[in-house]
């Protein structure tokens, strides 16, 4: 530790990632620095409205809100915690560890802390534990080559556009197998039908640079059973182990000593009164992202302005708490995750069939994956909507493409117009259609019919010529749409998660603007920074997101309990 501090002083920070976030992230130091330099310190800044959509009430002191990293704008989404009167706090309870948020990071953290001897409380805004998705993945160390693990770490860093903290990727790589196995075992004890799918979903990543890898993949499914149900089952195990859950009790403020150590949480109970939960060893924030906070999204990630949201109530509460406790938010340009695995078969989502936008036009070389198509569909009209289109010969024409084709009978499971009961899907999200004519299909897909018919005609010409002179798609992926019935999958990519967050070290302890750990404050899950950094969440390893949440929850719970 001492050595690191010396190095910090010399180099200005412990590593390039941390240096960058401290220099350009959002923190109270940036505000204070601005004030001392006489830059619009305590007076309201003109032009606030242009900077953020959510405005600060007229007459409010600028000091009541966070400031942009250049000190030039007052940020309505970072309201300073208002003092809560002692008389409004109905009860004070003391635990070793207090976890804020019962999701895929928070529930494992709570149980892990409890198993390591701590008394643990969890406060949760929703009426129960919540999470999304099905797969959570770790590396099966015993059956992986060391060079393979390092090659995968390198690949993930590249897929994160080189902007992550490699130490955190490496920590996931070497601990995730153990953590995911532990989650599977403990969730089963709570009644979950979770299974280990091993390498089933990972066939494309069993070798990196020629080195072998093997995986542990927890599968909470099939839909409509998800990791949300899985975390509720895991919470049963945690409750039986003695973890106390406070549901419908959103955390509002951290309790800090005058020196800044975080020693507790104040949360609002159902009846509007406050409860104070003191934490002898540490507070673990696991409140997730901020996709439902409009002003915050407009500021950090305007890309998603017109794109739909999959989650509710993710308002960034943890960001506000951690910021005012002295933490640093990663700089503007956050990483997003937008998927649609539900409208049609997930195994066909990356198949390069003809794709059209809402205007009925082609818009991309269709070999671009579903997980990044949001970048082409960010405008208000398209808003993430597009359709994959193919004809009745698709089973033979696309037989050799990556992914897995579902035969026509199976596609009916994804058709809202088919009256039979659905299996293994979110019934309200299926959106696959079949029609005898292109015009009828266009109407079902809600794309402009005339343009759609013209697009298909043009596309068929390109297929016949064997050269995609419009978008350059490889010739072996040019398959015409000729033979009725015609099929279409109307996908709509929406925000599953935003996965940039607060600056933390390898102990998942929040760092302040000097790169020093904030006593008592730990941050995991999508609220934690450093793990991504690219334009989009990478699908390098399916289930990495949940795998990371479990792993850092498992490690952090254990670590804080043992302090």
């Amino acid at each position, binding site marked *: 530790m001492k050595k690191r501090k010396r190095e910090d002083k010399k180099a200005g920070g412990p590593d390039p990632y941390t240096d960058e976030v401290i220099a350009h992230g959002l923190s109270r130091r940036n505000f204070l620095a601005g004030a001392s330099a006489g830059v619009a310190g305590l007076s309201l800044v003109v032009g606030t409205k242009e900077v953020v959509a959510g405005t600060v009430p007229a007459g409010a002191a600028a000091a009541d809100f966070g400031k942009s990293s250049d000190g030039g704008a007052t940020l309505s989404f970072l309201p300073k915690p208002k003092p809560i009167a002692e008389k409004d706090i109905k009860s004070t309870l003391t635990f070793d560890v207090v976890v804020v948020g019962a999701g895929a990071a928070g529930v494992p953290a709570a149980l892990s802390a409890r198993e390591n001897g701590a008394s643990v409380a969890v406060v949760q805004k929703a009426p129960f534990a919540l999470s999304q998705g099905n797969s959570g993945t770790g590396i099966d160390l015993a059956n992986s080559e060391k060079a393979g693990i390092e090659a995968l770490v390198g690949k993930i860093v590249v897929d994160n556009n080189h902007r992550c903290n490699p130490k955190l990727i490496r920590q996931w790589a070497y601990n995730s197998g153990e953590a995911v196995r532990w989650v599977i075992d403990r969730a089963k004890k709570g009644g979950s039908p979770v299974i280990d799918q091993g390498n089933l979903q990972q066939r494309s990543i069993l070798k990196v640079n020629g080195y072998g890898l093997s995986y542990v993949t927890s599968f909470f499914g099939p839909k409509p059973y998800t990791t949300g149900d899985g975390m509720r089952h895991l919470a049963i195990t945690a409750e039986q182990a003695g973890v106390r859950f406070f549901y419908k009790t959103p955390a509002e403020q951290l309790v800090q000593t005058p020196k800044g150590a975080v020693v507790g949480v104040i949360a609002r109970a159902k009846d509007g009164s406050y409860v104070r939960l003191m934490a002898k060893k540490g507070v673990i924030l696991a409140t997730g992202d901020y996709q439902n906070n409009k002003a915050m999204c407009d500021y950090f990630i305007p890309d998603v302005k017109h794109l739909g949201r999959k989650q509710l*109530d993710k308002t960034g509460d943890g960001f506000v708490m951690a910021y005012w406790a002295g933490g640093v938010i990663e700089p503007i340009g956050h990483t997003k995750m937008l998927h649609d695995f539900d409208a049609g078969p997930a195994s066909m989502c990356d198949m390069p069939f003809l794709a059209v936008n809402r205007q009925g036009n082609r818009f991309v070389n269709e070999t671009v994956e579903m997980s990044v198509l949001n970048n082409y569909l960010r405008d208000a009209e398209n808003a993430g909507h597009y359709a994959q289109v193919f004809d009745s010969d698709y089973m033979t024409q696309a037989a050799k493409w990556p992914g897995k084709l579902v035969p026509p009978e199976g596609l009916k499971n994804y058709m809202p117009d088919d009256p039979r009961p659905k299996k293994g899907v979110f019934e309200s999200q299926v959106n696959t259609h079949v029609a005898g004519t292109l015009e009828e299909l266009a109407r079902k897909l809600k794309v402009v019919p005339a343009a759609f018919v013209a697009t298909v005609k043009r596309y068929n010409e390109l297929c016949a010529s064997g050269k995609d002179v419009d978008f350059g798609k490889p010739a072996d992926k040019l398959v015409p749409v000729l033979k009725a019935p015609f099929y279409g999958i109307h996908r709509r990519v929406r925000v599953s998660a935003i996965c940039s967050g607060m600056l933390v070290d390898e102990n998942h302890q929040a760092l302040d603007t000097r790169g020093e750990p904030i006593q008592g404050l730990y941050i995991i899950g999508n609220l934690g920074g450093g793990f991504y950094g690219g334009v989009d969440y990478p699908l390098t390893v399916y289930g990495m997101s949940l795998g990371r949440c479990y792993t850092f929850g498992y490690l952090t719970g254990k670590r804080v309990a043992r302090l």
Partner: protein
Amino acid sequence: MGTMNTRGGPRLEAALRSLKMSKLSRCLYGLPVVALVAVFLGSAGNPAATAASRPSTATREFKHSAQAIGCQDCHGKVKKQTPVQTTKCLECHGDTKALAERTAKVKPTNPHDNRHYGTEGDCAFCHREHAKSENFCLPCHDRFDFKVP
């Protein structure tokens, strides 16, 4: 909602364009709009009332007036009015679990028992006193076409 004609293609269907902004914005941000129930009582005299605010005349008309229920029955007698919380609704309407049982057979799904909130959603997600009620599910679930009283 500007037009986005590409390559000279025809304009989008009117149905696509006429997507109401209110629904769109909720679809985008998923924000429960509890405050709408009585936000204007609360914001009277507040210079920072946002663009979402409606004229204060809305406060004088409300559905419960038919049952001879007055402002104070819901908002209390305090000087500074605040939005009504779901707990207040339940004082007369009873437990939400019982409500969810009554609507168990509603198709295509039970609006009072769902994956997001169980039986503990806020009444004001959908039901409004001073404004038209809204179908909170619809922006994300196209086919949940409830008529909300």
